[in-house]
Structure formats: C-alpha cells, structure tokens
C-alpha cells in the first residue's frame, strides 16, 4: 500500500530532513498528536543547529513533560512543581557558561510557579524558558489551569470556567515582558505548520539571547491537549487557532535590540 522510494536514472534521493540528534532514540509517552512532541523536536533542532548539546542542561517540570529529560540527549534534572526557574538559577549561577533551560506547562509556570518565574525574569536570569500553554492540566487528568479560557469545561470547572467565581485567565507573556530583566519574551503557536516554523525561529532567538548573555528569554507556545479537550489531534489544532489565539495574541512582547537585528 505504501508508495516505494522512486528510482529514476540519473537521479538520487537527497535527505532534506531527519530526526534531530539531540532527541533521544526513544518513543515518548505523550498522547498521539500532542504538541509537546513538536515542541521537544523544535528545541532539539535548535540545540543541534547551534551546536549546544554538550553544554546544555534541561530542567523538566511536573506535568506531562515530567519525563522530558529522558527524551533529550543532554544533561537533565527534575524540578519540583513550579520551581524549575529557581533550579535553573542555581545551576546557571554556578555554571554560567552552560546553556540552561526550563520546559514548563501552564500549571507549573503560571500557578504554583508564579513566584519563581516572575523573579527569574525580574533578575534577568540568563536562562531560557519554553512555556507550553494548553489551557488545562494534562497530566493530572484535565483540571482547570490559570490559562483555562472563560466558560471552558474542565474537570474542576465542570460547568465551564465561571469568571465570577474562578477568575480570569492569565497572559504570562504580557506580564513578564514588563520586567526589565526580560530580554526576549514572545508568544507563538504550534497549531499548523506555518506557525510551527515561526515557533522554531522564536526558540532559536530565545537560545541566542542566552548565548549572548542578554537576559531572561521565554517562548510561550500555544499548544494542544487532545485527550483532555476530548478532541482529535487535528480538531485540537483548530481549537487553538479559533479559541486560544484570540485570547492569547501571538506576537513579540519584548525583544532586546541586539536580537532585533539578528537573522537566523
């Protein structure tokens, strides 16, 4: 049933894309279609392209990505829920020439970890944060997140998020961009190939910010959770486009001057 590789005279097949080396050679536990996999792949591609694999230490969160360190071929550590920016600070302060990044979900970063992320950004901690915003708590079974949309149904907002009782979603990129220590704070989405390509460029610039010692960098990535949103992966991608992008506008919220001129 599968189309075989073409074999024509005087032509050869040139490989134009293969799995990045910084990704470990192991299947992940993420649900089919979960954009965690896309984000992991983009980070690995950037690490490969910048030649940073042997200098990088990644910090895994508590959340679906709790085992993220198993999926990369660089050093990794496990943080307590929300504390990754503090752990990253501890590592970067003793090893300032290494590349230190955290990978955090919306509960980890914007709920229990709110204090740590704000202060890491305020200090201009020279770390990079990959912030996966899928408006829900995935690992624990679909509870409300600080980024859950008004009227969105979750297991702890079964009637839909009632803003009168449960408050409003938090726009982290806008907040963190107000801090002078932030060098690069942007929001992108992973809901289609064009946006995924833009997300990769942003991840590249975020790591460039760290390499150049410019300050705190963060890329917020609007992401899917097909399982807890109770949709197919493709439906979930469209849900991001139709519901999350209007609530969380894509764009550059803080870009240090040195990065603005950078072409990658």
């Amino acid at each position, binding site marked *: 049933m599968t189309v075989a590789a073409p074999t024509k005279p005087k032509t050869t097949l040139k490989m134009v894309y293969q799995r990045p080396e910084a990704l470990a050679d192991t299947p992940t536990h993420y649900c089919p279609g979960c954009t965690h996999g896309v984000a992991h792949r983009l980070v690995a591609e950037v690490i490969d392209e910048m030649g940073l694999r042997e200098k990088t230490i990644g910090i895994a969160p508590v959340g679906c990505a709790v085992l993220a360190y198993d999926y990369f071929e660089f050093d990794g550590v496990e943080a307590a829920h929300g504390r990754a920016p503090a*752990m990253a600070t501890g590592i970067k302060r*003793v090893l300032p020439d290494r590349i230190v990044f955290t990978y955090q979900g919306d509960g980890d970063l914007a709920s229990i970890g709110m204090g740590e992320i704000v202060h890491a950004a305020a200090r201009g901690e020279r770390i990079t944060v990959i912030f996966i915003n899928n408006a829900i708590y995935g690992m624990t079974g679909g509870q409300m997140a600080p980024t859950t949309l008004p009227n969105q149904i979750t297991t702890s907002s079964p009637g839909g998020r009632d803003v009168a009782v449960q408050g409003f979603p938090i726009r982290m990129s806008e907040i963190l961009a107000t801090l002078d220590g932030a060098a690069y704070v942007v929001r992108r989405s992973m809901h289609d190939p064009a946006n995924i390509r833009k997300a990769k460029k942003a991840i590249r610039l975020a790591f460039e910010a760290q390499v150049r010692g410019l300050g705190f960098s963060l890329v917020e990535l609007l992401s899917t959770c097909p399982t807890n949103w109770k949709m197919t992966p493709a439906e979930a991608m469209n849900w991001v486009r139709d519901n999350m992008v209007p609530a969380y506008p894509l764009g550059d919220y803080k870009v240090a001057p040195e990065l603005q001129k950078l072409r990658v």
Partner: protein
Amino acid sequence: MTRQLLKGNVAMAEAAIRAGVEAYFGYPITPQSELLEWMAKRMPEEGRAFLQAESEVAAINMVYGAACTGARVMTSTSGPGISLMAEGISYIAGTEVPAVIVDVMRGGPGLGNIAPSQGDYRQVIHGAGHGDFFPLVLAPASVQEAVDLIGEAFDLAEKYRTIVFVVADGSIGQMMEPVSLPEPRPPRRERPDWAVGGAEGRPARRLTSLYLKPEVEEEVNLRLVQRWQAMEANEIRYREYYLDDAEYVVLGFGTAGRVALSAVRAARAEGIKVGLFRPVSLRPFPTEAIRDLAARSKAFLVVEMNGGQMLDDVQAAAQGQVPVRFYGRMGGMVPFPDEVLAEIHALVSEPPTPAEAPRARWLAQMVS
C-alpha cells in the same frame, strides 16, 4: 592561632566560605539574616555565587539546582523557612545530592517570635520533608563549635550524598564569642561522576527523584537506608562532662546543654555527683551511649528549650532503665543555670519514681 570576636551567624558564614562553599542562596529571616548579609558581601569577593532568593521556597530549589552540578552549596534560615523548604529538602534527598542547611531556631510555632528556641528538633531530625530519608543533624553549643561543625558538614554531606543540618538556637546565631577560624580550603575543581553540567564527551546524565516503577523506587529507598546505617555506625557525636562517677545525668543539646553545664558545675561544687551528656549529632542520635548511661544512673534530667522533643528520644534510648525528668522553657525563653540547678536539687531531694510522667510534672510546675 589568632582568635576573633565574631557573631555566630557571621562565624558560620565565614566558616562555610573557608570550607569552600561555592554557592549560597537564602532569604532574610530573623535571627539568621546576618549570615545572608555576610555571604552577600563575601561571596562575590571570593568569586563565588550569592543570591538572595524571592522566598525560602525559591532558595532551597536554587540549592537543589546547584547541588545537582556537584557544587558545594548551602542555605540558612529559621523554623518558618525550614517549613517552606520541606518540599525542596525531600527532593534533594530523593535525588541523592549533597547540601548543607543551617537552621537558627526561634520561638514558634507559626510566626512565633525572634527569641531563641530549640523548637525545630523533631522537624529537622526528620528532614522536615516527606518520605523516607535521613539527614544528618549537628547541634553546636558555642560559636566555635558551630564553626567546626560547618567545616565538617560539607564533607559529610558529600560523603553520604545527603543533607546535613546545622541547628543552633537563635542565641548562638546572635552572640559574639572568640573564635579561631580554619584555614581556607579552595573550592574543588573536579566534579562527582553523578553531577550534571553539560554532556561533553560523555553520555547524558539525568538527576531526578522520580522513580515511577515501585520496584525501582524501593531500590533507591533501600539504598538511602543503607547509607543511613553507615551514618549511624560512623557519625555519632556527643560530649561528656563529669560522667565518670555520675549518679545523675543531665542531658541537653545546644544552648540548653551549655546552660545545664553551668548548673552541673555548681551542683558538683556542692558535692552532688551529677554530669552532663550533650549530644552533638541529633541524628544519628547517641542511643547506645545513653542506654549505657541509663543502666548506671539513678535519674536523668532532660533540659530543652522546647516542650520535650529530645526527651522522647532519650526515653526511648533509656528503655525504662532510669526515671526521666524534664525541664523546658518555651516560646523563646532561655533557661538560666539556677533554674536547672533547682531541678538537679529536686532529683536528689525528691527522687523520681519509675512511673513518674516527666511532662506532666514539669507542666504542673510551669503553669502553677
């Protein structure tokens, strides 16, 4: 060796620097803020990392991160901060990386006050955090002893890949005493073979406390117990004063032990055959030594600046061989030698019966 008059908090900080500490992350809290302030000034002078974190929660997680790189790292706080750090402490222990934590204890529970106490004994010997792990807990009774124990603490933390607490009540942190500081030891260059720091020319390493498979977690847990056995075999520390022919034994740690020593000396001058047993390692607890003492004593008097926390461990060690009395001051009150002397007199004039309940008698005295 030259001696300097130093405040306890400052002496402990300088001792850590001379022990080669590479990073300090902390948060202000009375009565230990001077330790943080000394680090703020001195660590940058030595080219080492200092950061005042946004909270004790953040501080302990910064310690956790730095510990994962194999760097010598510490924090300091008081009781409320230890409570906040409980989660991070458990993670550090579960990941089997070394760290030193100084607890300068104050009145509690809750916000309490800023006066000295020994109210965190039960908390720190259990490491404050969840799960089966075994910190080392050392309790100095003077500024010099605090300096000496800090110097050992880092080596012990690395030897056993565990947390070492140095617990002092607030008076030790605040008082000024003449101390001899040790010669400086430079921070080490080589990193342990478990440390993360960039997988240069080697496979990637991962450090975690997460072991989803129970059979794997059990292996880790058993390994921690094995290390605990080694600590119990090798790291018990205590001081004995006038115990060779003692009929009565006073037991106390830290400042309570030091105050009791004055009372013991006064009692000896009166001819009472009393001695002092002062645990220096609260964990591992000198159980055997106390059990042996119990077998040849008429009575024990436990003196603490809390409601009887070490008391329970003394009674367990004594195994009912000796009646035990208790004298404690709480809430930041510091006992005076004459109070302890009065208790020693009572041991002689109204000897305790085996069935006497130590806390009940003490409480009745205190609230009457």
